[in-house]
């Protein structure tokens, strides 16, 4: 990686050439630069190592580094593509790309499926949905009777689980989401369209020339 001099900016692990990242995503080079400013601030908030760990992610999302949330954990796990327990800049940009308003629907549908397929079996099982539903109700401080929960699950699965095998496969999910497009609402962040204006502290630096690949 090279020597660390006090006069030279510390190389950020996984900091890829913004031009390359821009070419692979819906972001422009200056948007990737703006995302890097955001990434730097999040990744240095607890440990200044150029990587986002779980606590830093929680701090950024909830303004509370100790706040554990089942669903935020799922998102973190999907951002952490290499399963190292940390998110590098490339991971960050590529994952956020799926949330871009211009990202292909297919990518959003696929990401969402993986989100809910908690054990990664390639199916969303009824038990998984039940677990997530109970977690949500807990978060909202509401208890529902077990048979009310079963009714909700029955209704959902009768619509989504076409072959009635107790689990939702990728193609059933695809059809279900197409009929219920509001389910993909969580997969789009309108902020990503105006990223360069969202960060007034962003100063364009000549990253593009400096980084040697």
């Amino acid at each position, binding site marked *: 990686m090279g020597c660390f001099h006090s006069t030279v900016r510390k190389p950020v692990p996984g900091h890829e050439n913004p031009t390359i990242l821009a070419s692979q995503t819906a972001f422009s080079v200056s948007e990737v630069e703006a995302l890097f400013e*955001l990434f730097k601030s*999040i990744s240095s908030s607890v440990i200044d190592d150029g990587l986002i760990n779980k606590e830093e992610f929680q701090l*950024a*999302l*909830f*303004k509370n580094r100790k706040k554990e*949330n*089942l*669903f*935020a*954990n*799922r*998102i973190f796990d999907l951002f952490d593509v290499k399963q190292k327990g940390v998110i590098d800049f490339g991971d960050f940009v590529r994952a*956020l790309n799926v*949330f871009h308003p211009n990202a292909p629907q297919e990518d959003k549908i696929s990401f969402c499926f993986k989100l*809910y397929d908690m054990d990664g079996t390639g199916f969303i099982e009824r038990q998984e*949905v039940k677990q*997530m*539903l109970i*977690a*949500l*109700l807990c*978060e*909202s*401080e*509401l208890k*529902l009777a077990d048979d*009310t929960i079963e*009714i*909700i*699950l029955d*209704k*959902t699965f009768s*619509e*989504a689980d076409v072959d009635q095998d107790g689990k939702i496969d990728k193609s059933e999910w695809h059809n279900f989401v197409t009929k*219920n497009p*509001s*389910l993909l*609402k*969580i997969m789009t*962040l309108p*902020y990503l369209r105006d990223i360069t204006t*969202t960060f007034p502290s962003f100063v364009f630096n000549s990253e593009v020339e400096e980084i040697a690949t």
Partner: protein
Amino acid sequence: MENSWFKKGLVSQPRKTDKLVFASLEIHGSLGEKINDFKYLGKPDNLNAFDIISLSPGFDLSGLFSDDVIEKDRVRFMSKQSFGNIILKLEEIAKGLMLKVVKIDGGLLQMEGLKDGKNGVLDIKFEIFEIATDVHFIEAKRFGGDNVGFLKILNEHIRPALMGVV
């Protein structure tokens, strides 16, 4: 409508649109006096398990882009009451607080303050979703007015009235 408030019944033909039934009602009090005249949409949207799960703030990545705690502009809670009761309670509370209910549309209700405050006129929008029979999820969002007032109304008046079992 089983509720005795709706004495007049339907005055125009209901129109089915996907999950919602639109109806126009005149509301009368128990003495027959006319209380309100507004469009009352019969049913809020029905939520499936994934709709409910996706309500979690854990899925809301907008926090990454903002230093503010976003939650303070939005309050979410559940109510084990019928849609009709929820609407009536909200109207009662609005009346008591001298707030105007300006629009009722499907599962949407807007409360507006009458006086101009620090951040403009208080403007709260309520969105009500059905989760199961007589179980509803309510989201209140502040669109105008000061935040302290908004939270006070929600936490001291609305949530206690709607979260307790009748």
